[in-house]
């Protein structure tokens, strides 16, 4: 068994919502190949869906096709998932968390996506590099 090796897999996606199907399949393969727990696979699916959907819906001001890269790395006890897009600069980590104590009448519809990412992952960081957004989400593996 190889110790402390870094595993890495990536997929290039188009800025279309139906790519979520390919994301799920890619994630399922990765979970299996890297022997990750099934429950983790499901939470990662949620994280990736929220992050990818945000990019597709809000990052682009034109109607062109864009490439979005999804990178997964496993290094020691850390799993790092990065989404890279060439949309307009946007740092989702700066978004204010929703007030989850509001009652039904006052609870706004929507605005939960980024919050679910932050709550599911152990660290969420943003960088703007080479005119691209990098959303770097880390999960500590038990």
């Amino acid at each position, binding site marked *: 068994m190889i110790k402390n090796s870094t595993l890495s897999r990536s997929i290039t996606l188009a800025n279309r*919502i*139906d790519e*979520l*199907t390919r994301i799920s399949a890619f994630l399922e393969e990765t979970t299996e190949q890297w022997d990750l727990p099934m*429950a983790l696979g*499901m*939470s990662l*699916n*949620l994280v990736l*869906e*929220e992050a990818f*959907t945000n990019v597709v819906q809000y990052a682009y001001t034109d109607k062109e096709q864009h490439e979005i890269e999804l990178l997964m790395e496993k290094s020691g006890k850390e799993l790092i998932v990065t989404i890279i897009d060439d949309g307009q600069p946007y740092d989702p980590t700066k978004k204010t968390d*929703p007030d*989850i*104590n*509001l*009652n*039904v*009448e006052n*609870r706004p*519809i*929507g605005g*939960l*996506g980024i*919050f*679910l990412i932050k*709550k*599911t992952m152990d660290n969420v960081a943003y960088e703007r590099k080479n005119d691209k957004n990098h959303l770097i989400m880390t999960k500590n593996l038990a």
Partner: protein
Amino acid sequence: MEVKLSNLNDYTVVSIHGRVDTLTASDFESKILEVLEGGAKKLLLDCSDLAYISSSGLRVFLVAQKKMMASGGSLKLCCLQPEIKEIFDISGFSTIFSIFPDAESAAAQ
């Protein structure tokens, strides 16, 4: 995603099967709205076979709850799988829905 309708006591039961995500949420929403517009005043969403939910799906649950409360109806949830329940907990949705362990106890009250 598929929904099946049935009745239990005076509740209309909507059993949700599969994934309620960004791809299926609008289909789910129109099916739920159809039930509400049909005049259901007591609604139970049975989540036994709900395999996955994202924020798009949570949004539909919230819309249904708001509409039910506005019309004086009653909306209950039952049978959430642990992974789904966790997402409801994180979102604060566990406190804005009446959640029961099984359909019988939900429809008994």
